[in-house]
């Protein structure tokens, strides 16, 4: 079955289940939904947002819980602490033994196996940003820990890594900027079994996208807001139950809004890309979506929004670093054993020097990413460092993806080897904004 077939299937299933529901008639929504479905089918295979669970606060919090900031460190050091080393080891093993073997099929199926998602959830990698008092696993806020883990998952496969990590961006955002009520309402679901899929949706489908200049709008209406716009390349869009949506708040600039998928006017449609296919990316379409006043995250503070952008960039850099290292690790044995003209091709400088360059730039990407993350942990400014890390990961990551295919020659171009996937996935770093957070 092709992707289009599958998407059609999904869309049809959604149509059927909506048509059968007499709920629409009872609340007088049939015309509206039919119109939406008509437009959706015309434009793509649009479906209403996932039905989703009901989020409700089980307890009331006096004030928001926050993870502790890391203590400032005096000495230059590139060694992870003991807890981090342990987490890295476990994640590394998981990436090598579970993710990589599943990567080709997940890419082909545009879906990460449920089993893998559950295993990852058990490792706790999606709730690193949840304060301990609300069921989180780590006491100290650590972008570095998130980076180290993303790097290892990215070594396994970027698409699956995005699938695993994307829902974690929502609790991380709530942990960082949510108020007491928002945390009480939404965070508990993420620490339970069967945690919801969720996504941080920032990027929009247009050239020269700038996260500070959004087309998606939020207008004040009554005590709440009305959202309109289109979000692009949202991981697992069809199954996401909760979104954090970036929208331009009138007279105030870009801000983040908590939107439940089942809210009226939220639609999704598949948007497969050249890469990240295992993450089942899709568009989220907001048509007059009404959200209450308490949907606004971080009080609409521009500094919060910018911090979110910068943290997201660091996460993408971590994935790129992991994939670049994976490429290097894959290429070395290949060029050492592939013979041409009577000796391994690695005996030629034109091949060997490419290996050197990949080694150099992978190290470079890693160091820039670590620096940005550690500055974030210490409460220092990190916009510049995140921007530079992103620039380098965008340029060199793409180059490494391309060189990986090139060094494998014809083998690089076919799906038997992972290089063509790195080629497609590494291009995402310069395109994506949002979706992940550290």
């Amino acid at each position: 079955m092709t992707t289009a077939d599958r998407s059609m299937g999904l869309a049809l299933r959604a149509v059927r289940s909506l048509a059968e529901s007499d709920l629409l008639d009872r609340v007088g929504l049939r015309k509206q939904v039919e119109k939406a479905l008509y437009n959706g089918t015309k434009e793509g295979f649009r479906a209403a947002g996932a039905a989703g669970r009901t989020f409700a606060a089980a307890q009331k919090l006096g004030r928001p819980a926050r993870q502790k900031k890391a203590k400032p460190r005096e000495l230059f050091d590139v060694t992870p602490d003991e807890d981090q080393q342990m987490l890295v080891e476990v994640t590394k093993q998981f990436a090598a033994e579970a993710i990589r073997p599943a990567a080709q099929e997940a890419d082909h199926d545009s879906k990460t196996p449920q089993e893998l998602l559950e295993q990852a959830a058990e490792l706790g990698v999606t709730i690193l940003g949840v304060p301990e008092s609300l069921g989180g696993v780590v006491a100290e806020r650590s972008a570095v820990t998130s980076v180290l883990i993303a790097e290892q998952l990215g070594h396994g496969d970027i698409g699956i890594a995005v699938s695993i990590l994307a829902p974690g961006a929502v609790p991380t955002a709530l942990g960082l900027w949510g108020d007491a009520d928002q945390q009480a309402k939404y965070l508990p679901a993420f620490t339970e079994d069967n945690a919801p899929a969720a996504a941080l949706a920032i990027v929009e489908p247009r050239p020269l996208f700038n996260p500070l200049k959004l087309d998606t709008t939020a207008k004040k209406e009554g005590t709440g807001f009305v959202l309109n716009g289109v979000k692009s390349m949202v991981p697992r869009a069809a199954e996401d139950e909760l979104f954090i949506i970036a929208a331009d708040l009138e007279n105030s600039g870009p801000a983040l809004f908590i939107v439940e998928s089942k809210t009226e006017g939220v639609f999704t449609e598949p948007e497969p890309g050249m890469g990240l296919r295992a993450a089942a990316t899709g568009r989220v379409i907001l048509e007059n979506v009404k959200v209450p006043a308490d949907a606004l995250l971080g009080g609409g503070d521009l500094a919060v929004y910018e911090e979110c952008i910068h943290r997201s960039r660091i996460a993408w850099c971590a994935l790129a670093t992991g994939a670049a290292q994976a490429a290097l690790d894959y290429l070395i044995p290949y060029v050492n054993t592939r013979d041409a003209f009577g000796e391994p091709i690695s005996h030629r400088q034109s091949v060997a020097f490419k290996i050197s360059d990949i080694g150099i730039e992978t190290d470079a990407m890693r160091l820039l990413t670590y620096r940005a993350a550690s500055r974030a942990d210490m409460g220092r400014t990190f916009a510049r460092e995140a921007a530079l890390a992103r620039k380098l990961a965008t340029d060199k990551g793409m180059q490494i993806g391309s060189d990986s295919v090139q060094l494998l020659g014809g083998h690089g171009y076919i799906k038997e080897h992972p290089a063509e996937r790195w080629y497609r996935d590494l291009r995402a770093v310069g395109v994506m904004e949002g979706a992940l957070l550290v």
Partner: protein
Amino acid sequence: MAINLEVPKKYKPLITQANQVAAEVLRPISRKYDRAEHEYPKELDMLAAVVDGVNEGSDALGGAGAAGVRGEEKADAGNKNGSNMATVLSVEEMCWGDVGLLLTMPRQGLGNSAIASVATDEQLKKYGGKWAAMAITEPEAGSDSAAIRTTAVLDEKTGEYVLNGEKIYVTSGERADLVVVWASLDREIGRAAIKSFIVERSNPGMKLDRLEHKLGIRASDTAAFRLEDCRVPKDALLGNPEIDTKAGFGGVMKTFDNTRPLVAAMAIGVGRACLDETKKLLKKAGVEIDYTAPANTQHAAAARFLQYEADWEAARLMALHAAWMADNKEPNSVQASMSKAKAGRVCTEIALGCVELAGTLGYSEVELLEKWSRDVKILDIFEGTQQIQLLIIARMLLGKSSAELK
């Protein structure tokens, strides 16, 4: 243990000091000695005395040769930020001032680094406090330093080594007190027979042929010598006099693991000077760099600047990383070569790119950008060219010998 890539506070005074020297002593005479090639920058004598004084008290302010690789054994198992890092930091600052002048800083030559690294206590006593240059390259042997033809023959009667050969590209060769000369004890054996010898500059067997006229770093003299029956005492040999074919070249090359991050630091200093100046000029022209807006939504010049800055930042962190490894006694050959390869190429690109961005202001001698872009090129050449670094890195990553990967 925790990941932190910031420069520790304890080095702030050192950096400030070096920056002041760079801004107030080096920059003002930069253009003067770029024009007056081969003229000795007498201003440096006073500065060198200050640097010596500072180094008595703290770690390392000064040139490439300020710190050797000697270093005491690690006192405890914990993380250490030591003299290698301090030297990288101060070299960066000084070269932000002027790399040519740093290279000719009295008593801070590459030879000093070699001596500090491998000299015995007696040799240290005898030669300490003197200015030592390094003579490796020959007309027929550049990057392939194992192919050098200069010979050293032990005269059993007098107990002296007799050196014969030709050396070129000796930085500070005219001005130094000593020249550390690489020569072969037995050309049949190859690299293992190559040893370094300390030759007094006043030795009559060492004859200055000429001083080179160069593209850049003109403040630093570059000498060519002939060694004609140049006799040196037996104890002028640095390190082990035995020919150990197993240890091979390692001993002599060891110095480079520690000086490569320093050459990287030089490039990083020049690169930063270019970026600082260009940022100012762009601002005047109405272009400011925004770190939140994506590069491609900004002015093309700003986007290019961001690319340069990202590469520059990478080079800097790589040099610090390599130095940090040296401070912690971790083998850092790969990282040392990587840092030099990255810094050499990106800083050359940055400097030339900044000239373009600044237009004729960058190209003319009104500003220093054109000078920096001439100076920086040598840093991608000496102490192992870009191509040699890539070769070294590739051999290590691929696990190949020099016979397999030529």
